């Protein structure tokens, strides 16, 4: 039974990947596609997992269904049948894992609590001690406001904002960015799992993986001019971010297509999905397309038409940054 399931799932994934590759190539010049047949492109995988019944008949996300949704997403990303195997590929016992959530949007549009609990559960099953996991963002009050319970000691998952430990005194720089990093990032974790929310952003166009790193520095307010470009890309080049980042699990249970990053119900929709990838640029590019599709459905201008296309995504992919790819031919979108 289990091998049958394995065969079926792998076949399915192959079909998805092939389909994505065809879709990606079909919009491009035939010559490129021909060249790729001879030298296949390395693709960044972005998994979109959906569950229309994630909330059952109510409005709150069901914890069991969330865990199952996360498992499906991770299994598709790592091509594994056993959920715990996927996490063992990602982390090792003894590592200190930080979950950088996003509580900025307030209730309604912050990293989902059930999702964070599900990630913590799987991390512990993979051998990470509860006290070696820290759920964090910039401010404890903001986190409490959206439902996180602070914990700073004991043998349990730690949860607090940078306000509890402060930022490093030393300024770190790259390109246009000069900032002090959260001590949670520099001292409390050697693995970073990014847990942003799929959102429109008034200044940057969209905010997901890359932009969520504004929450790890003391001066994000300085980096909003010019659509946050090149600040977002430069920030993600800082070694503490770049070397520790292993995975992005983007919460798209409730997503926002306009008026972000704060919660405005009239511009949000219950997408009941997760997006996971190890390539933050590919994830952001894919999420951007999702937001554009929703904007089109609602009769809104494109972000380009609204003069706020997220150009920072291309900057993050350019030769000076190489944080990932924004080339659809190099992104395999897998929907499960």
């Amino acid at each position, binding site marked *: 039974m289990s091998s049958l399931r394995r065969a079926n799932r792998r076949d399915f994934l192959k079909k998805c990947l092939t389909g994505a590759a065809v879709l990606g190539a079909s919009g491009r010049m035939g010559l490129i596609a021909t060249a790729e047949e001879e030298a296949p492109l390395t693709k960044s995988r972005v998994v979109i997992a959906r569950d229309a019944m994630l909330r059952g008949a109510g*409005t709150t996300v069901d914890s069991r269904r969330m865990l199952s949704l996360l498992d499906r997403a991770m299994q598709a990303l790592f091509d594994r049948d056993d959920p715990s195997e996927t996490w063992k590929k990602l982390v090792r016992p003894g590592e200190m894992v930080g979950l950088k959530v996003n509580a*900025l949007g*307030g*209730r*309604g549009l912050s990293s989902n609590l059930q999702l964070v609990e599900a990630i913590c559960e799987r991390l512990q099953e993979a051998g990470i001690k509860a006290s070696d996991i820290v759920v964090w963002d910039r*401010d404890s009050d903001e986190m409490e406001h959206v439902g996180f319970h602070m914990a700073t000691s004991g043998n349990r998952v730690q949860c607090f904002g940078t306000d509890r430990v402060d930022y490093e005194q030393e300024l770190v720089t790259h390109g246009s960015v000069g900032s002090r990093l959260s001590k949670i990032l520099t001292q409390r974790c050697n693995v970073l799992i990014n847990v942003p929310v799929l959102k429109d*952003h*008034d*200044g*940057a166009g969209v*905010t997901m993986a890359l932009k969520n790193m*504004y929450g790890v520095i003391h001066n*994000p*307010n300085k980096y*909003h001019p010019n659509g946050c470009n090149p600040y977002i890309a430069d920030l993600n080049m800082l070694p503490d971010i770049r070397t520790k980042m292993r995975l992005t699990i983007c919460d798209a249970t409730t997503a926002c297509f*306009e*008026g*972000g*990053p*704060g*919660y*405005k*119900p*009239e*511009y949000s929709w219950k997408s009941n999905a997760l997006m996971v990838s190890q390539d933050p640029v590919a994830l952001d590019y894919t999420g951007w397309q999702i937001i554009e599709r929703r904007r089109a459905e*609602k*009769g*809104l201008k494109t972000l380009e038409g609204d003069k706020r296309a997220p150009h920072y995504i291309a900057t993050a992919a350019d030769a000076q940054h190489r944080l990932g790819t924004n080339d659809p031919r190099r992104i395999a979108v897998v929907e499960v």
Partner: protein
Amino acid sequence: MIARGVLLVMLGVALLLDTSCKRQAGTEQSLLPASNQVAGWAKTGDTRTFEAADLWKYIDGEAERYLKAGVQRVSTADYKFQNEVDATVDIFTMGNAEGAEKIFKSEPAADVKPIQLGDKARLSSQSIVFRKGAYLVRIVAYEESAETQQALLQLGQGIELRLAK
């Protein structure tokens, strides 16, 4: 004698300053109704006020839009309606009515309907946004129910009365 006079004058000035600060704080506070000043609505948290320079601490990423429109401060508090619906009220004090209008007009009217409240208002299934003079008010509910819209409307009307005073 002269020293005592100076001391009295300083004390008087200090008292005057203290009173004006309290009055100002009281004015901001009073814009947000206390529990049950609007039927069914309980205020569940303290009022938090962010001056323009600190607005990013509350709405990082959106602050620039408000700053360009001349925001002076925002006061915010959480509410609950009949133990069922949670909501947050934001009252933005802009420099003038044009600033409030600028923010109001910048937001597309998708899935909303115009209603009579303040100078201009729109209502969705879980939110009300209205402007009145130099104020822009946003009320967001976190649950959708048959009663939500009507409850939001009543809270909005309660706040509008306070802005008119």
